[in-house]
């Protein structure tokens, strides 16, 4: 039972990659990438978790209460923001690809022609 977070993370990774492989639309592909990234968040937060610990915000709890790891949460925060920027850039690329080839189907995108 304590393996469940990591199991769900592995499952999300595989489901996301399956979505990317069987995608017929570039925008659908980009959204499947966010599912893959979600799996990394779960692994990171799962590593830092401590049973029966509080959140690392000391506004209303004494500073000596055991908390979960704040460093891992800072890493995940960075990760979430980077996900947004990556998706923005990929969507712009998808728009450009549609302009170039007239289609959003990855199977029909032309090869790099000289």
């Amino acid at each position, binding site marked *: 039972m*304590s*393996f*469940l*977070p*990591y*199991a769900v*993370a*592995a499952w999300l*990774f*595989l489901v996301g*990659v*399956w979505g990317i*492989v*069987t995608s017929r639309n570039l925008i659908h592909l980009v959204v499947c990438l966010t599912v893959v990234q979600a799996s990394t968040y779960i*692994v990171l937060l*799962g*590593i*830092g*978790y*401590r*049973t029966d610990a509080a*959140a*690392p*915000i*000391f*506004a209303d709890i004494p*500073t*000596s209460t055991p*908390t*979960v*790891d*704040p*460093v*891992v*949460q*800072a*890493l995940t*925060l*960075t990760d*979430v*923001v*980077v996900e*947004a*920027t*990556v998706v*923005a*850039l990929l*969507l*712009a*690329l998808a*728009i*450009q690809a549609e*302009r170039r080839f007239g289609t959003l189907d990855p*199977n029909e995108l032309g090869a790099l022609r000289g």
Partner: protein
Amino acid sequence: MTPRARLAVFALAAVGLAALLVWGLAGLPRFGDYEGRYGRIIARDTVPQRKATDAVGVTTFDYRGIDTLGEEFILLVSVVGVMALLRAHREETDESRARAQELERIRKAPLPSESLTLLGQTLAPIVLVLGIYVVAHGHLTPGGGFQGGVVLAAALLVLYLTTGRTAFRRLRAVAAFEAVEALGALGYALIGVGGLIAGAQFLHNFIPHGHSGLLTGGTVPLANVSVGFAVAGAIATLLSEMLDQDLLRSRGGR
């Protein structure tokens, strides 16, 4: 390679990948038994050293501030990339005829219903205040520059969705958004340089830390504000770039 063959290759690879993932993840410590030292030291020392209570915010902007600098510039570069990709397209269309058509469409475009406009105009200032609150209290409670910045950009989005497009086009000033974003990124870098000027290393927390309440944490609230500007400007720029004349042209054409 046909799609079916590709799917078969993927199925084989997925089995191997699943096995590797499970084997690798099973080697981690049990869920709930975190024993790392770095996190415990930071959780113990945040309030005595910086007097600010949000350990994650202080970690992001002070103890690991260099990572956040890199992340902010990732955001900046990605916005530059999106603008470069989408603007090249815009210049290739027929300029004068497109512009005349677009003005015609704007004049003919139907406005949203009045109740929706009222709702939007009531909601947008509330969302704006919420965004400013989240940015300002980032070093005390959950929140901070990134979350608050996106909430600020969301106020703009609410305005776009509920008021007429003409009002939004007057409000939309991509140059202003870009300037705000650049100022935010510059502000963060200057805070780092301030640490150098104060005689210590880059991004040293050189402002006095205060005792309790809002004016604690040294450079952390300043970094929050500059990151809030940067992220709000970035998201507003991204949304404005994707909303374009093409949108208006197609809506009028149907």
